[in-house]
């Protein structure tokens, strides 16, 4: 599974209140949530969210268990997140809703906002098409890759029933 997208870069400890502020948690429509994605840290994010690949530092998604955080990113058009590390609840939530998340130490130093990236989820290879530099993320375990490819846990459970 290969993904193409444009880099939107953030630093360390991007928390779930940045990704979707608490006041929006009463919204039930994912498209409405998406309008406020990253509003707590970057109100201009939605202008560049289509086909975005977020590249972030350590501990991305720390804080709350709100699944609305990865949901708002997914529906904003974000294709994947590559971070130095993730907070554990966000990591599980993202996979469970089918939003690809990769851990990679080096990428942050190799990209600039707007660079074009190609991700190979299976091998973990990441290529910066703008600067023609490649690096390697931790490949996803088979069962996680499978969850992402099928579009999340819900789809997997639906399929299992048929």
């Amino acid at each position, binding site marked *: 599974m290969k993904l193409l997208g444009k880099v939107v870069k953030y630093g360390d400890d991007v928390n779930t209140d940045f990704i979707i502020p*608490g006041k929006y948690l009463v919204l039930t429509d994912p498209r409405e949530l998406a309008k406020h994605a990253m509003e707590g840290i970057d109100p201009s994010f939605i202008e560049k969210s289509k086909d975005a690949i977020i590249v972030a530092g350590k501990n991305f998604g720390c804080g709350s*268990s709100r699944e609305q955080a990865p949901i708002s990113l997914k529906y904003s058009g974000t294709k994947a997140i590559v971070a130095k590390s993730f907070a554990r609840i966000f990591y599980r*939530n993202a996979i469970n809703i089918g939003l690809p998340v990769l851990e990679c130490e080096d990428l942050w130093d190799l990209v600039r906002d707007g660079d074009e990236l190609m991700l190979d989820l299976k091998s973990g290879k990441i290529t910066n098409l703008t600067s023609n530099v490649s690096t390697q993320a931790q490949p996803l375990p088979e069962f996680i890759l499978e969850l992402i490819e099928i579009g999340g846990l819900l789809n997997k459970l639906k399929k299992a029933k048929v």
Partner: protein
Amino acid sequence: MANIIEKILSKASNREQVFPGEIVEAKIDCAMINEITGHLTIKYFHELEAKEVWDKDRIVMVLDHTIPAGSVEAAELHKIMREFAREQKIKSFYDVGRGGISHQVMIEKGHVKPGDVVVGADSHTCTYGAVGAFSTGIGSTEMAAVFITGRLWFKVPKVIEIKVNGNFRKFVTPKDLFLKVAKILGVSGANYRGLEFKGSTIRDMSIAGRMTICNMAIEVGAKAGIVEADEKTLEYLKGRTSDQFFIAKSDKDAEYERSLDLYVDDLPPLVSCPDAVDNVKPVAEVEGIELDQVFIGSCTNGRMEDLRLVADILKGKKVSDRTRLIIIPASQDVFLDALKEGLIETFLLSGANVANPTCGACYGGHLGVLASGEVCLSTTNRNFIGRMGSTKSKVYLASPATAAVSAIKGFITDPTSFKGD
């Protein structure tokens, strides 16, 4: 040679022994949702065309984030929860006026026992380690799977042992202890790990204090915080649960990834400064910062022990004209006890605004939202930018003692140097 978390997870997964890094499928003893995350779980449950939850007596549903409903949107979420509880015949549904903040309700109503594996669709589910349970926060989708199967996979975490000895000085509290831990470990220092608190200070600590330190385990990224159950736990559980349970204890030669040795005799009151929980300094170092709002409450510090401490300080005093004080008991039971003990009267006479149990102010929802440029000292657990309202507001986190004294002065004040005027 197993630690407490390994023992609980091996029992729940029907295994002789488990090791850090292993993935196990555990049986869930109790699962909790609130309205903010639970409405999604219910939606997915229906999308999966599931007919019945796996065990209606092991599910607890609590309305707590917006109590009472402050908007049509919030009311709709309450309605979804109410209808699901009725449809699935879930008895442990805490409607408006019946429960309070979920994490307080889960413990005080006896839904959590030592040795249990508990999941909640809220990150502060880690609070229940206070009674010797393994508890952790999960997302709404996984919760739908738990509602159907009663099982969930976990990676057995590495555990950090935190040994705490000594006695707190007057006006130094378990909250200050955790802020010290946060300063040492950092906001991601325990990511994917468990924290086991032990030592004489922990043995002497009330269940309320243990709840405070386990509650904040997530603020250093931890999967769970836990304290081995002891006589205090058994005493607390009397009359709250009649179910059988097992008390898991770490073996003497249990393995830990890392050990911290802390002594609290000289621990000063601490404050977590904007905009990260690990940006911790002695209160004395930031004394004098003017406050627009002081907030006392939440799943971290809204219990009777906290409110008694606050009332002792506020008795016969007035909140400074420079600031406003908002006090929210963690549950209806706490509210009633505080009323009976006269604490609520003390708060009202001091000029505090007392409101009903809810998570509202802590996450910037309602009942204490901050305007741009405002500064708040709060007994809650997060001070991220915008957490309590405007992205241009600032939040300092501290203990109830520091909060009460600072409310009287109108600026951040070290409670250990407070002379009562």
